[in-house]
């Protein structure tokens, strides 16, 4: 049973229509300057429940706890910059399931340098139309039965060509014989640019 939701933050009342935000289909959270979740709308709660993320994004908890550790600093910095400058952070990203390809857009709107209204909106959702399981296995699974997946971006390395590609089924839940590595792009970005300063 979900805990009762918190009241709409007074800080937002002069500018935002609480009832309207309650009813929209996009997932909305209001964060304080440190990233603590002050309020979420019903769509946020539904999405969390449907995707098994309810315990990671409670009101009062930290928004960043639901983000994988290597990405946390990126979003902390982006949100801090939005708060400091009054600018909007805007990003499109993929959050697919084994059945559906889903593209979302994230916008973080600063509110008087004291809070952020974070909105995740569905941009597109459609069935994958995946190749057969056998065809996927033949392309990615190595002779010993294991496969290599980038632990950062979740792309899987093709067994023969060594190209890194997204395999929808293994983004949400890895193949049981997945060995996790790091693709060249992620080595450069997460460990070259960010990890060795």
């Amino acid at each position: 049973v979900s805990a009762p939701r918190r009241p709409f933050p007074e800080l937002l009342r002069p500018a935002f229509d609480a009832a309207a935000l309650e009813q929209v289909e996009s997932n909305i959270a209001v964060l304080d300057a440190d990233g603590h979740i002050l309020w979420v709308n019903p769509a946020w709660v539904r999405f969390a429940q449907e995707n098994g993320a309810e315990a990671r994004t409670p009101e009062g908890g930290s928004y960043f706890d639901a983000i994988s550790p290597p990405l946390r600093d990126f979003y902390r910095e982006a949100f801090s910059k939005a708060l400091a400058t009054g600018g909007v952070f805007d990003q499109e990203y993929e959050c697919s399931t084994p059945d559906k390809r889903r593209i979302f857009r994230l916008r973080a709107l600063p509110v008087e340098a004291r809070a952020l209204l974070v909105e995740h909106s569905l941009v597109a959702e459609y069935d994958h139309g995946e190749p057969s399981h056998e065809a996927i296995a033949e392309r990615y699974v190595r002779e010993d039965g294991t496969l290599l997946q980038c632990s950062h971006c979740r792309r899987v390395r093709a067994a023969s060509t060594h190209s890194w590609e997204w395999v929808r089924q293994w983004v949400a839940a890895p193949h049981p014989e997945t060995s996790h590595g790091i693709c060249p792009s992620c080595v450069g970005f997460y460990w070259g640019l960010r990890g060795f300063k």
Partner: protein
Amino acid sequence: VSPRILVVDDDDATRQVLVRVLTREGFTVAECGTRDEALDHLRAATFDLLLTDFVMPRGSGLELVAEAARLYPALHCVVMSGHPRPEEASTAIAWVEKPIDVEQLLAALAR
């Protein structure tokens, strides 16, 4: 004397990253890509720590840890994986999530 650590991972890039991070942190690092190579290293030199991937071709990290613990009871073992800890893995084995967070990794090694 700096602690000696053996890094075992079938992914070259991950090994290179770990060697750089751990060397910077003052460890003396050796590395290899399979369970059998790791056992060769352990036979050839003394190590304080074993840091191994979980899923690898030709022998898993848990198999390596079990063998290493039998042969070298003083060796401390840490397993890295993008998978959650399986039920058969002893809770005495430190488990570090991939993608690797350096602070979490160093904390596990410090324990």
